[in-house]
């Protein structure tokens, strides 16, 4: 089956002025998403993954500025359209699920009102049609007595239910692409798995592209087709989920994977890995590899000049390191 490209991002950067200088939380990020594909963006807090998703949606905070070489959603060049046309795309062809289900719904309006708002705004359907779809989708996301739920207010639902509502909301207009920004972080561990399965299931059923932003590698391993690992505003390694999990190349990716125990592999009582040092400040320009300070392979070469995302072990695999992937294998 020929893959159909839904989203193409190239050279995406975000800059935020701060009193102590220009902050560069996202630097030259590029990746793509195909229809029916799940791309996970992983990285620790503050690595720029959430801002990357907000930059794609053009929902960055006012002070932040976005620049990109290429930002194309299914033949629409999002760099060339105005805010009005962008708002036609938002929630319609591209929708987003946020991290905080408890606060992401407006407390003053019913679930039904907030679900049907999107399709009515985008002229997809009238009130009754939108309500029917809302009920159908609420049932799809596993909410019982969906018709009655439409009359309920957010404060009457639990966090897990609210996130289900958010997922249903993201699907209301039948988007080509869904961006899920840490959709399970704020939820109970038992609910996390359910929500994740649900997302993966719906993504297969509706055949949309899905960008899953998370710091939970366990989540990624289960649902992602491809993985982009972000560190300090840059993608440091990108490849198929299988490649990243079996033979990670970049020292940071390897460090991350060392941090999680693997059943059957990690010996009971043994120390889990940790990455020494802290994430560098992203204020001002930073030549060379961002990870160099914490990397045990680092040499003088690493910090002298910018390191590009180079070819990896297979065509769709890329690594940002001065050493070749072969050199990096243990």
């Amino acid at each position, binding site marked *: 089956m020929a893959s159909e490209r839904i989203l193409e991002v190239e050279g995406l950067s975000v800059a935020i002025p701060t009193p102590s200088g220009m902050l560069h939380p996202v630097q030259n990020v590029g990746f793509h998403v195909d229809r029916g594909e799940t791309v996970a963006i992983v990285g620790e807090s503050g690595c720029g993954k959430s801002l990357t998703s907000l930059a794609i949606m053009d929902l960055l905070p006012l002070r932040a500025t976005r620049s990109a070489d290429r930002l194309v959603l299914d033949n629409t060049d999002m760099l060339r359209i105005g805010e009005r046309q962008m708002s036609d795309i938002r929630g*319609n062809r591209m929708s987003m699920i946020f991290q905080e289900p408890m606060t*992401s719904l407006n407390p003053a309006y019913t679930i039904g009102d907030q679900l049907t708002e999107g399709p009515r705004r985008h002229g997809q359907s009238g009130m009754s049609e939108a309500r029917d779809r809302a009920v159908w989708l609420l049932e799809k996301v596993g909410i019982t007595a969906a018709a009655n739920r439409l009359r309920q207010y957010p404060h009457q639902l639990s966090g897990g239910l609210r996130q289900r509502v958010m997922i249903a909301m993201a699907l209301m207009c039948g988007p080509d692409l869904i961006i899920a920004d840490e959709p399970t972080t704020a939820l109970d561990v038992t609910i996390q798995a359910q929500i994740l399965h649900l997302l993966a299931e719906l993504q297969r059923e509706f055949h949309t592209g899905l960008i899953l932003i998370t710091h939970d590698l366990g989540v990624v391993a289960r649902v992602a087709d491809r993985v982009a690992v972000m560190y300090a505003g840059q993608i440091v390694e990108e490849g198929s989920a299988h490649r990243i999990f079996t033979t990670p190349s970049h020292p940071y990716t390897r460090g991350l994977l060392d941090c999680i125990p693997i059943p059957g592999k990690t010996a009971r009582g043994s120390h889990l890995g940790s990455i020494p040092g802290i994430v560098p400040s992203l204020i001002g320009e930073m030549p060379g590899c961002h990870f160099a300070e914490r990397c045990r392979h680092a040499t003088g070469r690493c910090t002298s000049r910018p390191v590009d995302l180079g070819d990896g072990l297979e065509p769709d695999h890329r690594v940002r390191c001065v050493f070749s992937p072969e050199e990096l294998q243990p």
Partner: protein
Amino acid sequence: MFTYLLRRLGVAVLVALTVSLITFSMIYLSGDPAVALAGEAATEEDIESIRTYYGYDRPILVQYGDWLFKALQGDFGQSHYLKQPVALVIFERLPTTMMLGLCALVFALVLSIPLGVLAAIRPNSLIDRTALTIAVIGQAMPSFWFALTLMLWLGIIWRLLPITGSDSWANFVMPSIALGYYITPAAMRLTRAGMLEVLSADYIRTARAKGLRPVTVLFKHALRNAILPVISLAAVQFGFMLGGSIVIETIFAINGLGFLAWESIQRADLPMMQAIVLVLSVFYILLTLLADMLNAWLDPRIRVA
């Protein structure tokens, strides 16, 4: 919603009763009413006969009970000075004061809510600074002085508006501005603060992520949540305004309740003063109740709380 209404109503009745008791006793605390009525040249016998005639010789609680019982039936007694039923006089004057209060409130909200919203959308911009200046001036300026300044410019120098009286709508313009301007600063700052907070809320980002038009995001999703404290404030301030209208009505010689109150104080017209204070308090209580109901309607979370 209905139980919430009932509960709030119960509280309102209790507050009204307490206020009536305080009102009633406060007037006795200000001096012997019989002496005040009798005037300076009165003899001891005159005072005594006045005291028995009006029943001031009875225990205070009995007087209060009697007064309250009649007041509940709409009978506030006879005015000592006008020799007319108090209820009738108040009923004549009340619409003027309500009209003034309402105009002032509308003026204040029409000025403060849009300015507050604009200031919040563009914090620290020129419009924000202008709004702040208006707020600071409004807060700092005594209303009687502002009223006199308005009179001087609009009434005397430019001759745009009539200075005194309450015969036509034009008479209400300056008093409404003078009275309403008083509550503008607080309402504006509160709108601004509320909007600033709400605009950074997660659900506003959700609304934008749905592709909703900026106007929808601003007015449907943000303002409804930001306006809640402003409504409560407006109700409280409206109460202050009813008090403030004593000053404003006197300055502009508007034949309303405030003017009547001032006249009654000068004439030591006890039943009239008691009734006015009670009517204004009950109005204030009703307004607070109305604000609570409005907030409950706007924010479903309040209904269950």
